[in-house]
Structures are given as structure tokens and as C-alpha cells.
């Protein structure tokens, strides 16, 4: 399937010059005196090398089809994050630095998908939204609505997110794992 820069998403894998590259981050650049461009941080899934490339917006790429096995996050130690994969509950571990973004949203027993490229596990796919408990929330400052009524709270995984001022400690929030942004309060 072909994807254009307008359809880019964090985590998808593109084929560029015959190699599989995963999108880590992307943003829009417009020099104003030429077409718009999209700047992407890409990770080569074979070598682990990370590069920055800038494409003309609207340009299309072939998406690499991946295999997925259902799995679960078990725990992390100082070096690795450990998962089970598939019905056989095979254990798979990845070095922490490989999952620096994903670990913001993983608590024990979170269900995820393990991604395979040519039979080799190389990463995980998070659910689009996860529920995480608020570990720390500063009290709201009364009457301050100029920020759109936002404050920064810390979630149980240690990840900080901007949330509405009514959010308090122990609330469970729904977080979008693509953008890392607050998307609602669970059970609300």
C-alpha cells in the first residue's frame, strides 16, 4: 500500500531504497518560497540507524506490510523490556532504548502487538489509546483559564501530560499513544 506524507503516522514502516524505515517522528516544514516539506526521523529496522530526511509534502512511499502477534508487556529491568508473544507465550525482550517512546505508555500486563518483519520480532505496536492512572497532579490555580485550563500531570509510568485542571491524583486518563496527548478521562 502506498502512503503519502499527509498520511504519515508514528510507527509505520516505509520502504526507501529497498530498506525498511520506521517513522519515529515527523513534522511540517514550509520554507515559504517553495512547496511544503515534511521532515521525518526514520529508524532503519535492519541496522537500527536513525536518520533525518526531508521529503516534499505529497510524496508517496510503499508501506512495508508487517506481521503482528498478540502479546503482553510483562516487566522491564534495567536493560530490557520483556513481553510475551502469541499463543505459545514465547518470551521476547527488547533493549529499553529501542522502546523509549512506547515505554511512556506501558504498565505491567498492557496488551500490545509484537511486530515481525521477515519472521524477526523488531518492535511493538501500542493500542491507539491507553488508560493510565495519575500519580501526581498539582492543584489547579483558581480562575486561570488563559492556558485553556491546562496543567501538567505525571502518570503512573512517569510520563508527563497536559490535562484539564479538573484532573486529580488517582484519576485514570485516556492517552493517545500516537501524539502522547490527553484524550479523556476514563469512566467519565
Amino acid at each position, binding site marked *: 500500500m502506498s502512503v503519502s506524507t499527509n498520511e504519515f503516522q508514528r510507527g509505520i514502516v516505509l520502504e526507501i531504497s529497498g530498506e525498511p524505515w520506521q517513522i519515529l517522528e515527523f*513534522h511540517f516544514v514550509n*520554507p515559504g*518560497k517553495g512547496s511544503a516539506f515534511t*521532515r521525518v526521523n526514520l529508524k532503519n529496522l535492519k541496522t537500527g540507524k536513525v536518520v533525518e530526511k526531508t*521529503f516534499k509534502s505529497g510524496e508517496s512511499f510503499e508501506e512495508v506490510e508487517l506481521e503482528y502477534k498478540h502479546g503482553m508487556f510483562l516487566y522491564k529491568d534495567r536493560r530490557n523490556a520483556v513481553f510475551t508473544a502469541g499463543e505459545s507465550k514465547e518470551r521476547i525482550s527488547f533493549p529499553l532504548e529501542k522502546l523509549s517512546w512506547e515505554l511512556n505508555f506501558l504498565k505491567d500486563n498492557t496488551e500490545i502487538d509484537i511486530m515481525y518483519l521477515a519472521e524477526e520480532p523488531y518492535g511493538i505496536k501500542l493500542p491507539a489509546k491507553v488508560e493510565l492512572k495519575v500519580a501526581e497532579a498539582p492543584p489547579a490555580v483558581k480562575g486561570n483559564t488563559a*492556558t485553556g485550563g491546562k*496543567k501538567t500531570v505525571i502518570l503512573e509510568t512517569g510520563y508527563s501530560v497536559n490535562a484539564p485542571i479538573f484532573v486529580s491524583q488517582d484519576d485514570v486518563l485516556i492517552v493517545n499513544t500516537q501524539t502522547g496527548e490527553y484524550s479523556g478521562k476514563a469512566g467519565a
Partner: protein
Amino acid sequence: MKQNRFLRIQQQRAKIIDAIRQFFKRKGFLEVSTPMFVKLPGMEPYLNPLPYSFADEKNKRYKGYVITSPEYSLKKLLSLGFPKLFEITKVFRQNESFGGAHNPEFTLIEWYRPHSDYRRIMKDTEELVSGLATMLYGKPAITYCGTKINLTPPWLKISVKQAFKKYAGINLDQAKTLTQFKALFRKNKYPIPHQATWDDLFYYVFLNFIEPNFPKDKPVIIYDYPLPQAALTKRKSKDSFYAERFEAYIAGIEICNAFSELTDWKEQYKRLKEECSLRKKLGKNLYGVDMDFIDALKSGMPETGGIALGIERLEMLLLNIKDINDLLALPAKELWKK
């Protein structure tokens, strides 16, 4: 806590804008105010002005655009013989992202020096930016995203031609046409973007090979752009492929765009008509050349150096803020994408 930080940012922005005004007033510039709503906006082929309409007291409707830059209006004043002047105004552009270094509305300062050129404007820019850092931090230096940046003038300067040669191995003298440029791409094994225009090839090289290689610990002024990238700019010499335009980059962020202004009305008219046909080719909204602007040039505008500088980007750098949404009081993203 977050609220206090937010208020502090707005207080610092107020201090910065005051200091910018004082900087130009002290140098004897006249502050002017020109319309944001115009019939015919800038012709820049790759900008997308926002259409706007309103009615008079008889309910007759007027259609136009909000400005992408006050440039035409300011040049009309300069053609009347105005002295050196500046304007701080909101400008509007669409089809850009809500966040990062973009917001659909943002603040530009433009300043113009009659009987001068882009070299003097480079000096103004260096003095302004290093002076603002000194006001905030006691010395002409900032820290942006963990990198210390020394803003002491004079800044590093490199011509576009040198930069293409040094960082991308491309001799722009041999890339004057799209066909020639494509041939150089093939020779260097660079992928040619889909439906590439000359400008696309230019920016493909600039964004992939040049800008990422700029030094991170100091600003860079990149100057003398090839003609297709310089529609409102005076040529270096009569037949030169280069024109007297510069941009300044700090920490990879483009903060301004400046020219020795094109004052020859015939050449200006010709270039605007070319841009108009490029807009047509690119499928952009179409409008005519602002003939009042051409007439103003015809009446005689002195040789002038001028510049547009993005205030929010400068504030982001000075206040160490990575995303414009963390700087603005009410970013478009909050208003429209809730």
C-alpha cells in the same frame, strides 16, 4: 506551577516586543500601521493567503485576503518618499501546520532602510538579536534545547552558491534551469521529488544537506539567492543569476528573510506575472498583480534594504521554547483542534 510559567512567558514576550520597538525608534525609524485586509495579497507562488470578505453599510460585499506580509503597503509608502520605517503586524497563511514553528496567524516585523541595501539590514539583525539576548540574560548568548548559542556579531556568513557546493556538491551555476538541475540530481544520485519544480529541487537540497549541517552554536546568515528564489529582490548585477537576498538561521530555525529591494518596476511587473502563472500551474487561488504597487515603483522608490522577521520564532529562541504552541497565549491548535 504551569500557570506561573505561562504568565512569565507572556511577560517576557511583552518585554521583548517593547525592546524591539525601542531599538528601532532609537535609531530613528518611523513606526507605521498598514491594512491587514487587502484586495490583492502577495503573489508568492507557494504561500496560501486566507480569503476574507466583509460588507459596507449598504451591505455591498467586498472580497479580498488578509495579508501574508505588509510588504506591498510599506513599499507604497517608501515610494512616496517616506524615511526608514518599520511595522509590527499580524500576518496570516494557510495550509501550514498548527504547531512546531508554524501557526496560521503570526507576528512579523518588517523594516526598510531607503538609500541602503541588504548589508546594512544584516547589521541591524545582528544588533537586534544580540541586544535582546543581552537585555534578557546580561550577555549576547542564549541556550536553546540544551545548546549554547553565541550571538555576538558579526555572524557567520555563507553564500547560497558556496553552501550548495560545500554541503551538497552542486554547482548552482550549472543548475539554472529545471532540466539542468535534474541532471545534477541524477549525477549525485539524489531522488527527484514527484512533479518537482525548480524550487522543489532547491529546497530538497537545502533541507536535506545544507540546513542540517549549519553550525549549531552560532547563527548563520545565508545570502545571495538564485533568481527563481528572489522575486522581489535586486539582482547582484545586470545579468547575474543571483540576487541580494539573505536569511538568518539560529539553531536551524529560519528567523528572517531580507532583500536589497527590487525597484525596477518593469522587472518587478514581469516577475510578478511569472509568479502568477506559476500559481496557476500549482493550482493556487488566483488574483491579479497589484497595479498600485507597480505604479508606486514607477513613481520611483529609492534603492532600499528591507526585511521580514518572525517575532514568535525569535521569541521561541530567546525563551528556549521548542513548540510555538507553548509560546502563544491562545494558539490556533487550542482554538480549532480541541
